[in-house]
């Protein structure tokens, strides 16, 4: 039974059917089987949040899930946010507010921000900081990330379409 299993997972709106070993982590399935390398692997033990994706609409560590165990689920990754020449308002604010330096952690921060602003369109700073507990950034010191999320919330409330 360590043999490969067939899974069907909706990734960024597309039904993807694959055969995977049970021990295949969701993050490796996304990166290696589907070629979606926007989701980054950091610590592989659930601490850093670089691998954060939306699993059935909620943030989840993709390094702490097996692809077989999320068979039938709906996954959104950073690739779903924007096309190459048209950034999502959250991405645009991260750009404008210098909310990244090396950028390694950024995909995870973006998806945490999507979850926050979908449920709480007008978060105060405490709510933003609590949501951002999901993710570790070693470069920015977080101040610019909080600014970017605040401004992204304003943009989205103004009706800017993602």
């Amino acid at each position, binding site marked *: *039974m360590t043999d490969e299993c067939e899974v069907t997972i909706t990734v960024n709106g597309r039904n993807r059917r694959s055969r995977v070993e049970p*021990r295949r982590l969701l993050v490796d399935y996304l990166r290696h089987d589907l070629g979606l390398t926007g989701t980054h692997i950091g610590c592989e033990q659930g601490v850093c949040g670089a691998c954060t994706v939306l699993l059935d609409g909620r943030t989840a560590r993709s390094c702490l899930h097996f692809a077989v165990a999320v068979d039938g689920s709906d996954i959104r990754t950073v690739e779903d946010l924007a096309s190459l020449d048209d950034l999502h308002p959250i991405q645009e604010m991260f750009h404008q507010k210098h909310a990244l330096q090396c950028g390694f952690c950024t995909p995870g921060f973006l998806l945490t921000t999507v979850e926050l602003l979908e449920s709480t369109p007008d978060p105060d700073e405490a709510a933003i900081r609590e949501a951002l507990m999901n993710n570790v950034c070693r470069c920015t010191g977080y101040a610019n990330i909080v600014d970017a999320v605040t401004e992204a919330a304003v943009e989205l409330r103004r009706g800017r379409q993602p």
Partner: protein
Amino acid sequence: MKPAPFSFVAPETLDEVVEALAAHGEDARILAGGQSLVPLMNLRLARPEVLVSINRCGELDYIRLSDDRLVVGALVRQIDAETSPLVQAECPLLAKGLRHVGLPATRNRGTVCGSLAHCDPLAELPAVALALEADLVLTSAAGERRVEAHDFFVADMTTCIEPGEIVSAVAFERQDPSERSALLEVSNGGSVFPVGGVALRWASAGGTCTLARIAAFGVGSVAQRLVDAEDALVGTDLGPTAIAAAVAAARNAVNPTGDMHADADYRRHLVGVLIERGLLEGEGP
């Protein structure tokens, strides 16, 4: 690192789950949210040969009232219990404790029963279960047994779960609306893991304390109910003398160890500070 190879089964009913557990015995582990188990597997500190996922068992995803109990099924995610109006009304201490568990992303997936079964000495929920005098429902192919929280938690990462058993539900004592409760903890620099903490429930009638339940975590190898501290409060006016007696009893009862985050004396001191703060400042965050 990547996990060692394993086999995977995902039954759709509790009967099939316990059948699979019976077939594989000690080689099997249950996968619920996986937020504690999968890190251990990635580090190869855990190498189960078979994972029995309960994520397809819709029948285990329920929160309901049963007499004087609030019963939470094995597949209830922490976030869903935390935000459940039923939990907030009937067991506010559980909702308060859940707010401190892990991170938002791990609460989205981790389960209430899974955290109890994992039995991390720094986890909040075992202390909440002790303070709410919970019963753990252990189901196996042979049937079902109920174990009081007091007997369930044995030591660091060790419970009385036998091979072939699953924690299929946990039944918490419902809190009276007149009760107050608080969960307080201290952690270093916003770390997910606290240094230590306490879960408190208390009630008064006519100026006299009629109920006190106190449990602590992070101050021993496993969460601990502090009965002497409770006894120091019941029947008193909850004034400074009574609180001082409870604080002294609590510090006397715990047996913390030191580590890089805090030494043993700090933790012993902390448990008293948090009890006093909870009783004086009330509901807490």
